[in-house]
């Protein structure tokens, strides 16, 4: 069972590894819908060079998100906070510049736990607060204080901080905004608006330690503050995504589109990847998606690293197979070779 879109999505992800040349794609409505559902419709426009009102809207939103991110990071650093960015808010800027990959929901930033209060103070001073956009009444609503407390009691991140902006150039993509109308791009009776969102983390997983991320952090692409090392971006993004796909029905292909360029840039310290994989016994939760990236970018991942990751655990408690049928919308065939 295949929708026929899997090959195009695969080709686009391969293109994302180098981001050069033009890819000719026979675009259909079904294909565009599929790619949009997987968070990589931007790759179609960027790889083919075809103009797209949606992409124009994504880019306008993205450039305001980047401006806001840089201002926030400057203020955090000025306040003495050690801010470390990660995921799309950093890597899309690093590898795609002024272009966005769809709508980026938020900026993820890791801060030391003992600097949470000053971080919150900076965010409040910049006009951020715990609020969400109500799609029914089309207005921002503050989160109830019990909801905020409940989130922060059980999570390693704070309740999201948000702020609405209405930049003048948003009017140029008003039609696309009305068509899209989902976080962080909405429309109300005054026209289109952007909901800027910041997710502040004091950890990145319930069973991980943050010291290594801070020790290995490097300067951020945003020109201020820091970000994960290339190695940490690779193992963390792929392991996290594998768990989310398997456990939470996550279907996005976008994490590959901003992680593969990290792998192909040639700056990954694979010793770090192997060391962390051994410490956390990552095994299959990293091996499958890293091996998939190796298929997309032949030669970019050392075979010895894949072997080392494979050897980090004999446990198969989190071995959920390739998970690619779910992501690319086909049914994986019966593994006959396993019985030969």
């Amino acid at each position, binding site marked *: 069972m295949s929708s026929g879109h899997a090959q195009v999505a695969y080709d686009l992800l391969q293109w994302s590894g180098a981001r050069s040349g033009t890819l000719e794609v026979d675009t259909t409505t079904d294909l565009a819908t599929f790619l949009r559902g997987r968070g990589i419709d931007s790759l179609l426009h960027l790889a083919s060079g075809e103009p797209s009102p949606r992409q124009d809207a994504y880019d306008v939103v993205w450039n305001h998100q980047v401006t806001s991110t840089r201002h926030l990071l400057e203020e955090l650093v000025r306040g003495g906070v050690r801010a470390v960015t990660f995921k799309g808010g950093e890597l899309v800027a690093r590898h795609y510049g002024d272009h966005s990959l769809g709508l980026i929901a938020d900026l993820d930033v890791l801060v030391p736990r003992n600097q949470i209060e000053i971080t919150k103070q900076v965010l409040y001073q910049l006009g951020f607060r715990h609020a969400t956009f109500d799609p029914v009444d089309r207005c921002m609503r503050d989160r109830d204080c019990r909801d905020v407390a409940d989130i922060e009691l059980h999570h390693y991140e704070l309740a999201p901080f948000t702020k609405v902006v209405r930049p003048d150039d948003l009017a140029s993509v008003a039609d696309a905004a009305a068509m899209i109308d989902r976080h962080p791009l909405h429309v109300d009776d005054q026209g289109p608006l952007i909901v800027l969102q910041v997710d502040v983390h004091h950890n990145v997983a319930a069973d991980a330690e943050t010291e290594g991320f801070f020790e290995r952090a490097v300067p951020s692409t945003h020109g201020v503050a820091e970000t994960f090392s290339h190695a940490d971006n690779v193992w963390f993004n792929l392991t996290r995504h594998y768990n989310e796909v398997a456990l939470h029905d996550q279907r996005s292909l976008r994490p590959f589109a901003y992680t593969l360029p990290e792998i192909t840039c040639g700056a990954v310290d694979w010793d770090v990847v192997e060391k962390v994989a051994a410490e956390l*016994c990552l095994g299959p939760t990293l091996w499958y998606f890293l091996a998939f990236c190796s298929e997309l970018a032949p030669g970019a991942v050392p075979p010895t690293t894949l072997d080392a990751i494979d050897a980090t655990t004999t446990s198969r408690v989190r071995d959920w197979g390739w998970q690619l049928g779910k992501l690319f919308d086909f049914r994986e065939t019966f593994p006959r070779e396993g019985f030969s």
Partner: protein
Amino acid sequence: MATNKGEAKAAPASVSVSLSDHNAVSALLTSIRGIAQEKADSVRISVRGSSSAVVELLGRFKDPELHVSAVLTLRGDVPTLE
């Protein structure tokens, strides 16, 4: 209370329903889908449960961009707690 098509539109009203029987949730959602298509102006749903349950429910609405942050564990040799 349902009204038939063609009847004069009543003043807006809202109702809150709490279900402790998980088996009833699916049936309720099916009913809501029908009502929302034909009669209701809007439907607001509040769900209380584990992160994974909420994420699964939201996933059924086919909006992969919907931002829900689940608490994750990463160790590969430990059963998942989510």
